[in-house]
């Protein structure tokens, strides 16, 4: 495995992300297995944001959010090995919602899009800049007696599929 992929995974685990390393061929199967395992019947995603062809069988795909959909799926533009950061580029606000509204955020990322550091990200994004969001782990708070609670306003869980 490449050094930066290793570091990326190490950092992701540090922020409590669940990580799967899969081949492109087995992505749909592994993703479906994960969703079935969690008894997920509905997912929310923006098709134009995802470059894989996903076959999720009987799982219903929504492109508009509806309260109660447990999983949002996104493809990440970059992964930053330095901090385990997932980088999402968005031209419109609604593109940001699949990684924000549902309880579980499933992030897909191509291994070749993992970079070492932040500066690599900014060098690769064309100007004028879109909106850029760095996502590092599931949302969290420690505002009550410093006790860590995962899932403040955003997802409670982050699941990352690295596709090679």
């Amino acid at each position, binding site marked *: 495995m490449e050094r930066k992929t290793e570091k990326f995974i190490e950092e992701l685990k540090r922020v409590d992300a669940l990580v799967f390393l899969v081949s492109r061929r087995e992505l749909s199967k592994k993703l479906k297995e994960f969703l079935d395992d969690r008894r997920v019947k509905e997912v929310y995603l923006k098709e134009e944001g995802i470059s894989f062809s996903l076959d999720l069988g009987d799982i219903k795909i929504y492109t508009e959010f509806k309260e109660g959909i447990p999983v949002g799926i996104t493809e990440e533009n970059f992964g930053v090995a330095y901090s385990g950061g997932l980088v999402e580029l968005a031209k419109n606000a609604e593109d940001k919602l699949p990684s924000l509204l549902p309880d579980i955020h499933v992030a897909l990322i191509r291994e070749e899009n993992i970079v070492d550091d932040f*500066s690599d990200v900014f060098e690769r994004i064309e100007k004028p800049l879109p909106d850029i969001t760095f996502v590092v782990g599931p949302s969290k708070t420690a505002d009550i007696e410093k006790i860590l*609670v995962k899932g403040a306003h955003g997802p409670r869980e982050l699941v990352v599929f690295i596709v090679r």
Partner: protein
Amino acid sequence: MERIDFYENARRILANPVIVNAVQKATSHALAKRLDTISRIPDFESLRDKARAAKEEIISNFEDFLEKFKKNATRNGFIVHEAKDAKEAKDIVYEIFSNHNVKTVVSSKSMTQEEIEINPFLESKGIVKYETDLGEFIIQTAKQKPSHITAPAIHMTRKEIAQLFHDKLGMEYTEDPEEITYFARQFLREKYFKADAGMSGANFLIADTGSFVVVENEGNARMSTTLPKLHVAVTGIEKLIPSIKDFPNFIKILAPSSTGQHQTVYTNIFSTVGRGREVHIVLIDNGRRKMLADPVLREALMCIRCGGCSNVCPIFQLLGGHAYGSVYSGPIGIIWTYAIFGHSVARDLPFASTLCGACHEICPVRINIPKILLHLRHRVVEKEGGPFAERLLVELWEKVMTHPTVNKFGFRIASKAQVFFERDRKIRCLPWILSRWTEWKDIDPIPGKSFRELWKERQKNS
């Protein structure tokens, strides 16, 4: 604003062990995490230097960078406003809101919004604004003030929060932090979808791309800035950094110095407006240009509001943020409060420091806080002449120390008289003006023989 009575605040807080314990826990927790995190960042020291250099560049060429930011932000489609003071800022926000017929607002944590006291203002105009950061939401519901920059509700126990949410919001009583958090999550979810506008602050303004940055952990800033169609960011003009190329250096030092995290959960960089939306940036001066023109205070403009100096400050560790009586607390908060709210409000504050230097050491952009505090003390004493008792003591001391005969007899008398005040070889309680001194510390008694006498004896004997 009224004069802040630091001493009175301190007395009140010290009488409340809940606050004292909570603050100690919060600060030591952040410091321990910081050490652990920076041990994994081998170039941390040079990142600090680079960030400092970038801020120095801003300070020495401020108006140019601000112009550049405004030009680029406008090109990005943001509507940029400038406000010279708090009143102007509030009027601008209100005008935007009236134009859009805004009735409810969701807002993510912003010190600048607190600085201009926008909440009571909007309330008076009939606009409902929800603070969405959990800690801020708690203190808003309790009608209190934040006690720590990154942990605003740290002074409250889970019991108090549970009771508060039960009484005010109808939560089924539970003391489980997770359940309380999920209750707030559910409560605010609805508000995000219904709100007419979202507000935020900004941690950074990037001059060369016209972008602004908001960092957070909870996702509430993301919600507030994506769900409503109108986004108003209110921020101080000092948040500038020259280039997106500098940004990595800042993002790498901010979270470790603050909560001790490697990076915050979300870093939101805004550079576009997007379909069907409107984004306003309100840039606030409110005394910052005056700081810039002041050779001593200008360094404080480099602050990136990490809160590290508070965590490490022995005074803050004991008292927390409320003692400072201002939105800006801790060592750097003293300087900001003095600069923004003025001498008459903040004249006690420069003395609320041991000048131990820990804040300077921890500050990611290496602001020499103790030096500035010492300078502010000087200003206070120049204006106020210092307390009468202190002046009298210093003058007396000067007399005694500069006249050998007075010195000799003075100390002799004192060493005899002190028996009335001595207990267990310490002087714990002196009369009249001297009581101000012994109220806070015990002093060693004057020894029976002075140095001069000992010296003479020694010469004789040898």
